[in-house]
């Protein structure tokens, strides 16, 4: 494979995250060989100890910014990357750890750590785009590996990836899934959530949890009103919007409307 000397160099970076999204790349078992033929995996700590120096053609960034050190590091990565793509809800919206943004993080460190004075952390967990320019954001908690391959392939061939920003309802209806909200009275976040999972939860008779964050022009207010009609408590609605994508603006604002 050393013959592919002009393969673009790919790097995978980790910030505050669970590693699930990077693992989606390793999860591409059948396609991994094709990926490594199409790009040179130059830096991927999770997969290999061989770490090449930059600059890199493509950087996939997982995780959110939660420490002063990381807030510095992301700038270095941006400087050494031609194209920077964030993968997953942490990198794109701040992740579940952005729940700290609604509270005082000092209180947490005092409760959790024996020596909180050693903890050097920011007050907030923020998406990569709050710090540097991001070229493309891939949604999901975790991301869908088929979408990751689609993004890499589209990038290699210079076209826009097919990762539509429409609702999860679209995916439900394309698959012929029966709507859990209308037919079962189960509250579902699908109508305000960005597609990408192929309506995984509704296909198993569960309401959508909103893993892919807000769709384009989401009407969270009307959906919350509908949830209430279905009997959801304010607390349930607040928690639903305050999840993996809690700090995504539209979800954050809706959750704040349902504060006690």
């Amino acid at each position, binding site marked *: 494979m050393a013959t592919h000397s002009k393969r673009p160099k790919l790097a995978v970076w980790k910030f505050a995250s669970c590693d699930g999204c990077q693992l989606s790349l390793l999860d591409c078992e059948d396609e991994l060989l094709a990926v490594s033929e199409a790009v040179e995996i130059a830096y991927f700590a999770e997969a290999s100890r061989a770490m090449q120096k930059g600059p890199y053609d493509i950087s996939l960034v997982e995780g959110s910014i939660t420490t002063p050190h990381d807030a510095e590091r992301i700038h270095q990565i941006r400087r050494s990357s031609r194209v920077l793509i964030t993968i997953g809800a942490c990198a794109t919206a701040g992740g579940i750890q952005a729940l700290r943004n609604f509270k005082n993080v000092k209180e947490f460190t005092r409760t959790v750590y024996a020596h909180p004075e050693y903890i050097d952390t920011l007050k907030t967990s923020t998406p990569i785009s709050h710090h540097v320019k991001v070229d493309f954001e891939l949604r999901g908690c975790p991301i869908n590996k088929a979408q990751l391959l689609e993004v890499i392939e589209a990038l290699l061939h210079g076209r826009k990836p097919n990762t539509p*920003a*429409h609702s999860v*309802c679209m995916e439900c209806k*394309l698959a012929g899934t029966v709507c859990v909200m209308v037919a079962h009275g189960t509250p579902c976040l699908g109508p305000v959530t960005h597609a990408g999972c192929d309506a995984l939860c509704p296909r198993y008779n569960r309401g959508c949890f909103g893993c892919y964050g807000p769709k384009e022009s989401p*009407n969270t207010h009307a959906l919350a009103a509908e949830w209430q009609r279905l009997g959801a408590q304010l607390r349930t609605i607040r928690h639903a919007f305050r999840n993996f994508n809690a700090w995504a603006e539209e979800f954050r604002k809706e959750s704040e409307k349902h504060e006690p």
Partner: protein
Amino acid sequence: METVPKAPVVIAEKALHTLVCELQSAGYRVIGPTLRDQAIIYDEIDSVADLPQGWTDEQQPGSYRVAKRPDMALFGYTVGPHSWKKFLHPPRLRLWQASRTGNEVSFSHDETPSQKYAFLGVRSCELHAIAIQDQVFLQAGHEDVGYRQRRDDSFIIALNCSEAGGTCFCASMKTGPQATNSFDLALTELLSEDRHEFLVEIGSQAGADLMHGIASREASAGDLETAEKLLAQTAANMGRHLDTQGLKERLQENPEHRRWDEVAARCLSCSNCTLVCPTCFCTSVEDTADLAGDTAERWRRWDSCFNGEFSYIHGGSVRSSTKSRYRQWLTHKLAHWVDQFGSSGCVGCGRCISWCPTGIDITEEAAAIGSAASPPEDAS
């Protein structure tokens, strides 16, 4: 499909089973209503036993529930979340493939599958919806070859509705409840304490041929009268109503009605209404390739005017607000469609009302927007 006027006949409930078997041995995949995930959907059935016998549905804006019936009717419900467009105009369809060898690129079409469908239980509104999609896809000069094939290969067993649903308004749209369009056979379920039979009307030679193998008797005047009464009752019990008199003009004259803002406040722009609608036909195409760039495919998939990307042109979406998307949908369906195709785009099936997660009711919205003379009522 040419109309072959043949005297209607009556068959026993059991004979319906034979009818399904005959279709299967003639090479058809028989598609009919069946119960899944607490809804009556359309899918392949192996036999009459797969039909939701003894079940009904209760439909209201934003709500659909299946329930047990007091009787053993085979077709005692109305339309569900699926429509026949799922088969005739599939949600995803590969249009072509391309492959590259060296500097050569070659393209190939998918062979249209020789899949023949027999649709069992096609309601009158649905026959009208199919006729509307025929107009779209079979326009002279731009015929969709695959659609033509699927359509020509389909065998249609229509069903006269013995009951109207809570969101039905075909009577207003003059599209039902009696099946009068082209069909091969049309059934009316005749069910009472002491009988369970079907009145069968024959609408084509293929229908007549199929009936040769089925035990039947000539329909009596009494049978026809029973069926007629049933249909009159259904027509009189529509869950919804829409005044179509001058509706096109009334809607086209009111692009700035404040009701558009009110409905937009409730609309999720989720696209459910358009995808369940049996006449909505819009699609997008998506290209994919393999990582090496040696093979590529073009796919067509259902799209919706409620999606921002749908109206994207260089620089942004033409319809960025939900208000403009809802207005586009409703006025196209009920008004501009008339200019474009010569009929309304709505057949009054009520799906968009039942399957809208916030229960937005097209009959209510059209009535409010079309009544500009009086101030619009409050939305709340």
